[in-house]
């Protein structure tokens, strides 16, 4: 009923969608998978009307349509449940559900709140959420908000003649396992009312829920697999376009780690984020924290860096027990933090390459508060060469570099300052494959140079490929430890088993 034919979309410099054919049948759940940058989000935006395709046709029940904006798409029954939740948290649930469509409850300019509450209750019943529609949204859990979001989209049912298509963008990323199960059951039930397009990085969930799966790579649909024939390895193979092999993660360069302990966690807890976590990080070791989003991985990194003080237990860095937790202490003891959001926490756009590199170590390049800019520049030139950073010179604004090169600048910042405990939080997120390989290469080099690395990886394969040691964390609690040597490592299945 909903169909895209030969849809094309080009941005300056990028051919984001290449002649994509995409079809959703009535009551069907369609999975959409692909690596970052494969074109999934562009395709979704075309579907819900945020982008207009450059070529090709969009048809609903055989009629050609063209949406200028998401509102028009909604009027044709296409709704989007956003990954970044789109609810306004200081409004009530019902206000959110009918945001922009209050007119039906208005008479003489006054909103009839009772009628709205009644209508909201009906919508909430569809998603089996039993809450007072007058609740302020910020009081709800993430899972509840997700359902409200879904209820909001389901209001289309009353407004639109014809069928609904609902996009779910990474709907499970903030949910616990039980909540995911509930959501899936609900979605299956709702197929009576609507078709779904399910987009997720979690391959197992896509396999479980979808009737058909579209696999995208480089802006093209490379395969469409029916649920019964779906095989995770085959799909991953198609997504990556080649074997995700040992070569890719530089496993042959993995060497056993040393005996010297850099960092030691002794029964450390932090509020409700994580409890009773213990581990040692050695020189030359890559230790990977594996768990779902919100399992406590990031909180542990923040404690190591000194951003959040633990509530119990002791942290030792190079034999020294940490008493005061702040970022300065972390930096001074040689901890370097490469955050997930490069734009927010990684580099200062507007400052140039050398200024970014010395940001954490300005005191080494200053006497009495006066900077020795010449020394900063020669340091930057040195590291630009060592890491092959693609920039015309050290005076270039970092905001203008590509993601991979920004990441190199961040790494250079910490390594040039002598940091030897490097925390990598999704270091390859949003990078293309070549840039990812550069990062993997750098991880091995840092280990050779005696640094210890704590990694929160983008994918399980990455975690396994890069690490010596894997700690699986679930709901803030330690589950299992895996020690891997090249050629003898845990499989994603082993990990998933303990993660969820």
């Amino acid at each position, binding site marked *: 009923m909903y169909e895209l034919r030969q849809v094309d979309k080009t*941005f*300056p*410099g*990028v051919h*984001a969608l290449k002649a994509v054919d995409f079809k959703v049948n009535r009551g069907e759940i369609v999975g959409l998978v692909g690596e*970052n*940058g494969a*074109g*999934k*989000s*562009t395709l979704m935006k075309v579907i819900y009307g945020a982008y207009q395709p450059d070529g090709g046709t969009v048809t609903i029940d055989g009629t050609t349509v063209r949406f200028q904006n998401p509102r028009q798409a909604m009027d044709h029954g296409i709704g989007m449940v956003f990954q970044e939740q789109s609810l306004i948290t200081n409004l009530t649930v019902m206000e959110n559900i009918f945001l922009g469509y209050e007119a039906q409850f208005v008479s003489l300019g006054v909103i009839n709140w009772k009628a709205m509450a009644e209508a909201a209750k009906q919508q909430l019943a569809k998603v089996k959420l039993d809450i007072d529609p007058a609740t302020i949204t910020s009081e709800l859990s993430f899972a509840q908000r997700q359902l409200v979001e879904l209820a909001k989209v389901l209001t289309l049912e009353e407004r639109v003649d014809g069928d609904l298509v609902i996009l779910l963008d990474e709907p499970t990323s903030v949910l616990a396992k039980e909540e995911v199960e509930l959501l899936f059951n609900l979605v299956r039930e709702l197929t009576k009312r609507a078709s779904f397009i399910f987009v997720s990085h979690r391959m197992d969930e896509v396999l479980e829920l979808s009737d058909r799966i579209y696999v995208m790579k480089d802006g093209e649909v490379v395969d469409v697999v029916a649920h019964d024939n779906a095989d995770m390895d085959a799909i991953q193979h198609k997504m990556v376009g080649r074997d995700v092999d040992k070569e890719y993660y530089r496993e042959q360069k993995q060497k056993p780690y040393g005996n010297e302990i850099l960092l030691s966690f002794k029964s450390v807890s932090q509020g409700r984020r994580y409890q009773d976590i213990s581990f040692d990080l050695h020189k030359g070791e890559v230790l990977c924290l594996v768990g779902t989003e919100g399992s406590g991985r990031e909180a542990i990194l923040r404690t190591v*860096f000194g*951003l959040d003080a633990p509530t119990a237990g002791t942290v030792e860095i190079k034999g020294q027990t940490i008493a005061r937790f702040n*970022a*300065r202490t*972390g*930096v*001074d003891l040689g901890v370097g*933090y490469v*955050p997930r959001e490069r734009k*927010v*926490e*990684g*580099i*200062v*756009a*507007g*400052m140039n390459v050398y*200024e970014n590199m010395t*940001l*954490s170590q*300005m*005191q080494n390049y*200053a006497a009495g*508060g*006066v*900077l020795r*800019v010449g020394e900063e520049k020669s340091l930057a030139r040195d590291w630009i060469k060592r890491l092959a950073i693609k920039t015309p010179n050290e005076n270039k604004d970092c905001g203008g*570099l*590509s*993601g*991979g090169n920004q990441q190199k600048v961040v790494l250079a*910042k910490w390594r040039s300052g002598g940091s030897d405990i490097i925390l990598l939080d999704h270091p390859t*997120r*949003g*990078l*293309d494959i070549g*840039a990812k390989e550069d990062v993997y290469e750098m991880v091995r080099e840092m280990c050779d140079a005696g640094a210890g690395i704590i990694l929160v990886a983008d994918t399980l394969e990455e975690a396994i490929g890069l690490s010596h040691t894997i700690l699986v964390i679930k709901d803030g609690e330690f589950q299992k430890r895996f020690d891997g040597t090249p050629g003898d490592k845990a499989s994603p299945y082993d990990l998933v088993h303990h993660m969820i």
Partner: protein
Amino acid sequence: MVDTTAGIAPRARFLTRERIIKWAPLLVLGVLVLLFPFFEWLEDVRAGDAHTYLLDSRFFSIRNAARIGISATPALMVAIGVTFIIIMGSIDLSMEGTVSVCAVIFAFVFIAWGGTVLSWAWLAIPIAMLVGAAMGFINGLVHVKLKIPSFMASLAMGFVGTGLALLLTGGDRVRVEDPIFRSLLTERWFNFPVMVYVALVFLLIAWFIQSRTTLGRNFYAVGGGEELAHASGLNVERVRLMGFTLAGVFFAVGALLAVGRIGIAETATGNNFMFVSITAVVVGGTALWGGIGGVWNTLVGVLIVNVINNGMVVIGLPAFLQDAVLGILVIIAVVLSTDRRSVSFVK
């Protein structure tokens, strides 16, 4: 989809957005400087008088340049102070109160301790600067420790300052008539009064702080990415405190030059500095959300504002139009310098 576009080198264009933003203020200044003599020329030609463009201009003359310099220097000092704050992504609106307090305290101490620079009264100068620093420091404390938005904290502190100045003077004017101090205005080197050179020295100091010290770098880091600055081990609160303190010192210098210019210190000494200095910073191209700009931008901005004020007087436009023109200029400057594709809603 995140970084696919970033990997591809943009086509080299001469008129990039960045270039336009960078050079637009200077261009505007140049156009203004040529525009006002044009009006004069037009007027004389209409009246049938002989008039050689630029050469016969009253506006485009050394005398008038000195006049613009005199009116611009106190404002330049104040604007430089607030530039640092705006680079940090905050704002400081306390300048009028701070300038008044510094001016009044300077005048009292100066007169009480001898009334001439050749006595101990010269100490009034550093004392005024300390007062400015203290006001700025308190301002910063209120902002950082009580976690009050900087515009509110500083606006309130400004009112406190104005009130304090009124309390000290009881509404009277305090005259500072020491000829040596007044030589800031009366003594001229190469046609320009000493105060212009003093301001130039402080401009160079400000530039040094901005480009060559850890403090200056910290301002940009905090303005460009506060989270990141924190995650790089910078003490963001301390940077903010020092920023407000430094701004206070520059406000005090502005106060001293203002007193030197008219020989009077009073509550009203601080009047008008807020509008002029903020306008100058913004028109000069320093971004209100922080991280971009600097003291040279502010110099150009202050000159634009003063050239407009002066030029409109020279060609005989009424004074009330001047503020309106400046107000429109501010809006144009912000529109031009804001990348509105990246900012969807502004509160």
